[in-house]
């Protein structure tokens, strides 16, 4: 049996920012092997047999939680779901106390979603388990960026040199931050577009082009990535009305014509149809890869769990 030496340097996945391009490529290559597992008659392999993974979701999530859970089950890990509502958190327990109590049950990995940026890092600093960030506030959502990259690479065969436009609620999006880190590391050309009120100050320093019109962003794009307007994260709307947002920044079939001939449309979900994206675009089987993103999410998360699981090099 031959062992290749390529591996992740950390035993945690806290964000895309600390990863090298080689590590990103390793995760994406590994995910290709796992995509095949989901197409088998028996969709299960024994790689993480006997390992306990706790899904600690302190904030609402369906897609990500379900995707992680399927990935864990397909790797034969034991899983335990812990949600904030209906738990001791409602009785006033702190995150550290919750985590230390869960740790007493000896999990090998903890997948955490939390509304505060840095919550996964705090756990990683204190607990012996591998920590996977499933979204922390407006900071990072690394597995989403990885599945987006996997989906793009599956279609175009590469990431370098592609024109990728990300449009929508940049200010409140952890998805966009992870995506910018990943895509710039992989040498793609990233453009972001949104009303000025939804663009954080100094975002250009992350190596992206900023434009304020949808048409300008779509012109010549290979990938058009639409983001959800996160109504729950905004104190009040950053623009006059949802109707006006759709009229200026909503993706319609007419506007999409400015993109390159083979361009694809992505959305991390959940979609607000008629706000950031028209149904005619979202359901366009030729252009929209939104459901492929969901399918690929399982393969990418299996790859991350596999690469972080198993034995660890002493750090």
């Amino acid at each position, binding site marked *: 049996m031959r062992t*290749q030496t390529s591996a992740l340097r950390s035993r945690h996945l806290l964000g895309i920012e600390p990863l090298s391009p080689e590590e990103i490529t390793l995760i994406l290559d590994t995910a290709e092997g796992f995509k095949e597992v989901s197409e088998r008659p028996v969709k299960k*392999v024994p790689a993480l047999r006997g390992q306990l993974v706790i899904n600690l979701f302190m904030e609402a999530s369906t897609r990500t939680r379900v995707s992680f859970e399927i990935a864990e089950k397909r790797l034969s890990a034991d899983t335990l779901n812990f949600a904030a509502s209906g738990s001791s958190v409602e009785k006033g327990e702190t995150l550290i106390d919750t985590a230390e109590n869960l740790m007493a049950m000896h999990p090998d990995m903890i997948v955490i979603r939390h509304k505060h940026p840095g919550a996964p890092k705090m756990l990683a600093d204190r607990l012996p388990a591998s920590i996977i960030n499933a979204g922390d506030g407006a900071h990072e959502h690394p597995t989403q960026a990885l599945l987006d990259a996997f989906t793009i690479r599956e279609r175009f065969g590469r990431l370098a040199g592609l024109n990728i436009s990300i449009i929508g609620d940049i200010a409140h999006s952890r998805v966009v931050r992870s995506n910018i880190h990943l895509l710039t590391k992989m040498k793609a050309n990233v453009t972001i577009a949104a009303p000025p009120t939804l663009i954080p100050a100094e975002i250009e320093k992350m190596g992206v082009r900023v434009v304020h019109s949808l048409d300008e962003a779509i012109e010549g794009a290979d990938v058009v990535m639409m983001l959800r307007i996160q109504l729950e994260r905004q104190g009040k709307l950053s623009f006059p009305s949802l109707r006006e947002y759709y009229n200026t920044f909503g993706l319609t079939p007419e506007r999409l014509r400015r993109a390159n001939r083979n361009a694809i449309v992505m959305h991390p979900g959940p979609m607000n149809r008629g706000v950031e994206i028209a149904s005619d675009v979202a359901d366009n089987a030729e252009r929209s890869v939104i459901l492929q993103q969901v399918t690929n999410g399982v393969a990418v998360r299996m790859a991350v769990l596999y690469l972080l699981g198993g034995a660890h090099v002493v750090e």
Partner: protein
Amino acid sequence: MNRAIRRMAIEVVEKNRGLDDLIIVGIRSRGVPIGERMAKEITEMEGTPVPFGILDITLYRDDLTTIAPNPVVKPTKLPEPIDDKVVVLVDDVLYTGRTVRAALDALIDFGRPRKVMLAVLVDRGHRELPIHADVIGKTVPTDAHEVIKVKLTETDDEDEVLIMEK
């Protein structure tokens, strides 16, 4: 080496009394080119193509919790359902038998073959599990501290079997 592979191909056809229900499956990584060459030999001999598949056994290894880092995973590709077929697993070296154990588990997750046979280019002994090969290219008695390295044109630019000290 080509003569040994041709002999293995002939033996597989003879043991199976023809090509009925036969599938050749190479175990990643060195079992793949050897299996491919056997399938080619059989196709040339019998005049009908024999299905060929690739099995990745990484996720079925029994040492995943002890080795670091985890080895690279690649897709398994089987040409057709294996139910009621005669599957010939092909690998380069038969040593402890642990790879074959993993391959059997991996294979059974894809269906229920009528029969599974094992063909290896080199049998070097030192089994740790009750596993034997049906077709052997060459038996090479070795010491446990020696390493057998099979090189193939497809992956290493030349055909060669080396016995080295660890």
